[in-house]
């Protein structure tokens, strides 16, 4: 019975989204459903976290045995990502309800729920083709959310975002078909068992599909050189939606960690250090592109987009080592940077609503509640850059420790990137809060305490992440050990034995 809790984070938002479409005329019903859905997901995520700490739990859809049916597996990594999605969704939803963003179009809440369904499913599934399907579910919902509220700029950026991601989906299908043609299976645990036994003449095809898959995940994770879509798309999307999208880049990182430890581990002769080498280069350049993008951005929203590219650079640079301490550090930093990016996007929305725009070159009017907002911006920028006392600092220290074997290159790029990012954020903060045109009248704006409470909640989460850094890092260290030795993840699916 308790095994059904594994699939509940997918079923709950799917059922609610369907109901919401039926009652599309009743905003009150939609809001009630959204609040129930978000609180249910948070409760489920907490329960699943405790369950996953005991060991991986499989869920066989339709009771078909693996690898013939689709299997979901809840392990520590999935549970961590589910909790991150649920917490972030709760905060973003509170902000959206307080500011009335959901009233600017008819279908915000159903799309939001479908987005959560896709994210949760992608984090849970243990089947590569099912991962593709959940990618498409979350993408088609994100297309709708992205153009929520309408407007020419949003439609144009949305068109580019959709075209780019459809191209990514096509590459994903090419990669999956190649893998299936080689091995005859798409179950990730089954692949982990079968790929090492493939004849050497298939090694080139295995390498080809590994690189194609990496390209797909790099598109999702906005890795250099596939990051061009991100700043413009996230800047054009409604800012609270962009705050939720902050977790979508981490889906790319999740998929890289999952496939890089399970399907294409460094011990697989065909691929070896192939992924590690590509990720190492992409991470280093990503940090530089992110840092200089932050320094040069003309508006606040793309600036945050570049900060996300830089933080993804740090994450994949750390992942590229594929050692247990590096994965633990990368996971800690990924959780932290999701929270930091979401905080910044929510703040960007409060700033745009009060200042009339986020252009950094133009002096704006003095903002209502400007003192509070500038203090929060300071805190969020400190977190994103990685200065003490917030969790960004703890995360970066762990990353530096994990990469100490490659200290000369990795440390100098990360530390210089941090410096440049800090200057960029200082420039943005002074332009927004100190370059005030006093001739302009201060626009009135209601205080919206719940919206600020949502931002405070994110900052409090980052404070908690650094206060309880030791227990969190300990839990993540066990997670990383499980990832590096995925035998439990494979055994729990009771696959048929593979003849060597």
């Amino acid at each position, binding site marked *: 019975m308790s095994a059904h809790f594994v699939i509940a984070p997918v079923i709950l938002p799917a059922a609610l989204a369907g109901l919401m479409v039926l009652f599309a005329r009743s905003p009150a019903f939609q809001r009630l459903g959204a609040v129930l859905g978000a609180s249910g997901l948070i409760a489920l995520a907490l329960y699943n976290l405790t369950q996953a700490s005991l060991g991986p739990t499989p869920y066989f859809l339709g009771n078909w045995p693996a690898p013939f049916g689709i299997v979901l597996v809840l392990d520590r990594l999935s549970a961590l990502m589910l909790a991150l999605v649920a917490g972030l969704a709760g905060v973003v939803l509170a902000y959206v309800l307080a500011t009335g963003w959901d009233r600017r179009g008819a279908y915000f809440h159903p799309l939001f729920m479908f987005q959560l369904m896709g994210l949760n499913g992608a984090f849970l599934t243990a089947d590569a083709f099912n991962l593709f399907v959940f990618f498409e579910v979350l993408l088609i919902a994100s297309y709708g959310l992205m153009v929520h509220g309408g407007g020419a700029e949003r439609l144009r950026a949305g*068109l580019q975002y959709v075209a780019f991601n459809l191209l990514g989906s096509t590459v994903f299908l090419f990669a999956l078909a190649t893998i299936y043609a080689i091995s005859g299976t798409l179950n990730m645990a089954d692949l982990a068992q079968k790929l090492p036994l493939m004849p050497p003449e298939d090694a080139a095809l295995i390498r080809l599909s590994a690189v194609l898959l990496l390209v797909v995940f790099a598109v999702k994770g906005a890795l250099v050189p596939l990051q061009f879509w991100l700043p413009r798309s996230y800047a054009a999307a409604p800012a609270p939606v962009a705050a939720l999208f902050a977790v979508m880049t981490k889906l790319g990182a999740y998929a890289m960690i999952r496939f890089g430890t399970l399907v294409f581990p460094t011990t697989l002769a065909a691929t070896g250090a192939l992924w590690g080498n590509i990720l190492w280069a992409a991470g280093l350049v990503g940090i530089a592109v992110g840092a200089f993008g932050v320094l040069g951005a003309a508006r606040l929203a793309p600036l945050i987009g570049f900060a996300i590219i830089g933080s993804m650079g740090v994450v994949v640079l750390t992942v590229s080592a594929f050692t247990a301490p590096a994965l633990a550090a990368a996971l800690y930093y990924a959780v932290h940077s999701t929270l930091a990016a979401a905080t910044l996007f929510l703040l960007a929305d409060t700033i745009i609503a009060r200042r009339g725009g986020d252009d950094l070159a133009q002096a704006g009017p003095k903002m209502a509640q400007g003192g509070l907002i500038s203090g929060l911006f300071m805190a969020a920028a400190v977190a994103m850059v990685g200065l003490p006392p917030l969790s960004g600092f703890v995360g970066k220290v762990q990353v530096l420790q994990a990469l100490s074997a490659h200290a000369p290159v990795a440390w100098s790029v990360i530390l210089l990137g941090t410096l440049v990012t800090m200057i960029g954020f200082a420039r943005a903060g002074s332009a927004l809060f100190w370059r005030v045109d006093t001739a302009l009248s201060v626009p009135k704006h209601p205080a919206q305490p719940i919206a600020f409470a949502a931002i405070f909640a994110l900052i409090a989460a980052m404070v908690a992440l650094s206060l309880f850094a030791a227990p969190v890092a300990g839990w993540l260290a066990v997670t990383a050990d499980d990832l590096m030795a995925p035998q439990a993840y494979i055994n729990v699916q009771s696959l048929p034995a593979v003849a060597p």
Partner: protein
Amino acid sequence: MEALIAITIGALTTGGVFLMLQRRTFPVVLGLSLLSYAVNIFIFISGRIALNAPPIIGMGPAPIDPLPQALVLTAIVISFGMTAVILMLALGSFLHRGDDSADGGGP
């Protein structure tokens, strides 16, 4: 047979990539469709090529792998839906701005 299918997939992919690189949105959408046709055939033959082989055990001398057929059905449905979405976005963008360039730049 193998050569024919390989040439078909190659031609569809080439045409799709070429159209994807155009500036107007309509060729881009057509290019995406061509790419999805190419990938659909590619998935379909990933279970090996066989003539007159039913996907059910016991109905012929050697059954063909049924899984790629299920996968390709899923892929067809998804790409069909996605094409509809991107067409609506392209149309909306065109009607809003009176210009259907995909990069949104000037003339």
